[in-house]
């Protein structure tokens, strides 16, 4: 290692980077665009639920329920009197759900034996479940008003026969905002793209253009060029990280409950893992197109699909769960979500970061071995 040579290589990498619109785009524009699109568009929150209330017989209790849904911002409700009409509306997808009140609703309420029937369009099961939950919540809140002698909070009683009362509260993401879970996920994606994808491209490009052939016939060591490429792309990755944190915290109001220094430190570690994978792939393929394809399949897609960012790992089939253990992004997603939303949980931090450190050293050593000064 020779500092003068490394600094010359870093200067070269830096100049190439700032003159390459693609790199700048990936480092600065991509985080912003991805966060804005996904933060607003990929929201799993449900609003504007279209529902039809079937009230065969007007009564004070039924009117109260209808008024409640009308005034609730999550629902667009209409009232009909015939079951057949409501069913037709559900079939035509004009509404997402029907709430049927019985003929003798008022009487049953007085007898404390009221039953309602809810039909939900469950073509897409997860949103259907969420919508059902919303209706239950609204009705539960209604109960004490209808049954004035019940204590507040024991509302579910009227809908459950066994008298079990559930008090639930959401932790870490109290308002159930998707942005809170998406922002950490996007940071993972961005660091993967800059680390693995961009790095594998720039290194493979050197092989393709034949530049390494003449660089090798100098006193330069192959670890020096690897180090220079890592340094510059590390800087770019950090810029991307900064932009993502800024947009996440200030635009989407994602809380940062852990120590920011630990968050940045852990992210650097993940970035080094990505960079090493990128360098390894490029020196194995020596071809930009192949390098990009391999990187997308081995790092980018898993960081989306198998990291626990979009899909819960515990609900995957067994062999996929085992596979996720070999995906560095999995540990980073866990680390990030904890860091942002929970705080500094040391056992979690130590576990995730030591796995990432092991990945980083493994891939860097492999990249060094696979980059001999020979063609």
């Amino acid at each position, binding site marked *: 290692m*020779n500092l003068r040579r490394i600094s010359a290589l870093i200067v070269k990498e830096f100049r190439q980077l700032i*003159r390459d619109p693609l790199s700048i785009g990936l480092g600065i524009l991509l985080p912003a665009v991805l966060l804005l699109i996904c933060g607003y568009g990929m929201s799993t929150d449900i609003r504007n639920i279209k529902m039809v209330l079937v009230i065969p017989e007007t009564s004070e209790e039924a009117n109260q329920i209808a008024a409640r849904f009308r005034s609730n911002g999550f629902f667009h409700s209409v009232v009909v009197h015939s079951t057949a009409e409501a069913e037709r509306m559900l079939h035509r997808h004009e509404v997402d759900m029907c709430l049927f009140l019985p003929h003798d609703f008022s009487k049953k309420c007085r007898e404390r034996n009221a039953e309602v029937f809810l039909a939900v369009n469950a073509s897409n099961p997860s949103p259907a479940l969420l919508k059902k939950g919303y209706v239950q919540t609204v009705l539960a809140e209604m109960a004490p008003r209808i049954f004035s002698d019940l204590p507040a909070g024991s509302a579910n009683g009227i809908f459950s026969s066994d008298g079990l009362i559930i008090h639930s509260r959401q932790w870490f993401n109290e308002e159930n905002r998707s942005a809170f879970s998406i922002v950490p996920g996007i940071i993972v994606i961005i660091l993967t793209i800059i680390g693995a994808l961009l790095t594998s491209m720039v290194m493979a490009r050197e092989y393709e253009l034949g530049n390494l052939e003449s660089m090798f*016939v100098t006193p330069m060591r192959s670890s020096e060029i690897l180090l220079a490429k890592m340094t510059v792309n590390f800087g770019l990755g950090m810029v991307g990280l900064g932009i993502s944190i800024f947009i996440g915290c200030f635009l989407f109001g994602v809380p940062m409950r852990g120590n920011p220094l630990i968050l940045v430190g852990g992210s650097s570690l993940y970035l080094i893992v990505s960079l090493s994978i990128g360098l390894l792939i490029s020196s194995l393929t020596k071809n930009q197109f192949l390098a990009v394809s391999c990187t997308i399949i081995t790092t980018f897609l898993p960081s989306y699909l198998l990291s626990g960012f979009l899909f819960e790992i515990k609900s995957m089939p067994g062999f996929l769960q085992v596979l996720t253990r070999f995906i560095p992004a999995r540990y980073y997603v866990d680390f990030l979500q904890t860091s942002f939303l929970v705080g500094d949980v040391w056992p979690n931090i130590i576990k995730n970061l030591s796995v990432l450190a092991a990945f980083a050293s493994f891939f860097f050593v492999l990249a060094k071995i696979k980059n001999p000064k020979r063609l």
Partner: protein
Amino acid sequence: MIIECQNLSKTFKQGQEKVHALSDVSFELEAGKIIGLLGPDGAGKTTLMRHLCGLLRPDGGSVKVLGVDSVLGANQIQNQIGYVPQKFGLYENLSISENINLYARLHGVSDEELAQRVPRLLEITRLSRFTKRMAGKLSGGMKQKLALICALVSRPRLMLLDEPTVGVDVLARREMWSILRQFVEEEAMTIIASTAYLDEADYCDQTLILFEGRLLAQGTPDEIRKMAERFVEDPTFEEAFQLLICGSVPERLTRRNPVREDAPVRIEVQDLVQRFGDFTAVDHLSFQIRSGEIFGLLGANGAGKTTTFRMLCGLNQATEGKITVDGEPLARNLERMRSQTGYVAQKFSLYADLSVRQNMEFFGGAYGVRGKLLQERIDWAMETFQLKPFARMNAEKLAMGFKRRLAMACALLHQPSIVFLDEATSGTDPISRHEFWRKILDLADSGVAVIITTHFMDEAQYCDRILIMRDGLSIAVGSVDEICRQGGNAATLEEAFVNLVT
């Protein structure tokens, strides 16, 4: 001895087959000279160069460079030599001076030495005015000179240049060789340069002749030429090479049936102009090509050759002027013109995974030759180009010379009466090239009009008439002898060309 190479062998695996890139190559070289490594494409020049820099490990034998073994002391060799690979190794989005600084620092050249040496290097290569320009915006010749500076900046004792003159015009090639000569004389440097252009042998003190991975001969250009003296009078370097390859010197090529004065005019170009915005690429060009004539279009890079060529093929529309084929305007008869035209380029467009016969069937069909006629023409082509034994072989497996024959065969299946050749034989070995030109001359003898563009005076020698272009203008037209007279009574066509275009 600066280089000792003993029984060097290298094989590469290509799918199932083994390719012997180098077999049993042994030679020794003395310091302080320009050594030319001559051989056609695929002779093993690049493989040998890479062994000399320690970038490849030999399968057999050994190489010692500057007294150091190339495997054990690869780093030590790489610290002391300069190397310019065929692809230059320049960074396109770094400027000239940034590229130079990068290589200087990698070589450990101190800043004082750099400040002292670089202006001199830039001056010799006449790049001083462009130091801020990005390497990607330089012409081929300028890139080549910049790559040379990058390798020279550390004052290496040995320079290795892999085809430093490929793809550039005669002027740039002459300049490159004179720069190299200057460094050998001023800095007691040894230079090994490879080239596929045999006419460049005379720039070298020593030559190594490589063919199909074997070293055929080593000696000064005169020694090599002398070998062929008992076969022909006043032999050329190319003839000596032919002797080394096949043990005899083929008959010199002559027209059996020269163009007659009254041969009909096939193509007539009148006041042809092509403008791109403010830039006039072709400026009032006029010439005629007759039946049975071989017509050469020559000029430095950027002189307008390619533009003219494209207009003749109907690929570009002329801004002004007229092109007539057999007395009819080209624009209105493109379809007919194309069905009478054959085209052979330096990079032939064969389908690698179709067999020889399938390639012929495809290209014949594309030109509208079908059925019984197509079968007859394919039989003719197999016979004429001796491709029969390979009919079922995939084109990619053919040796270089046979690929060229196939490309030519494909272009002639529809019996064109006008044939375009775009640097069709550069990089070919002298035997295939001789055969190739024999066929071209036969075509012309039978009345076909042949138009060639080329940088290589070797190819231009065969032309009946030559037109030399500069800055879009025609500056000389005539036979080889007439051009030599117009170029200040020059002894060779190359000299005449240089005199005319500078």
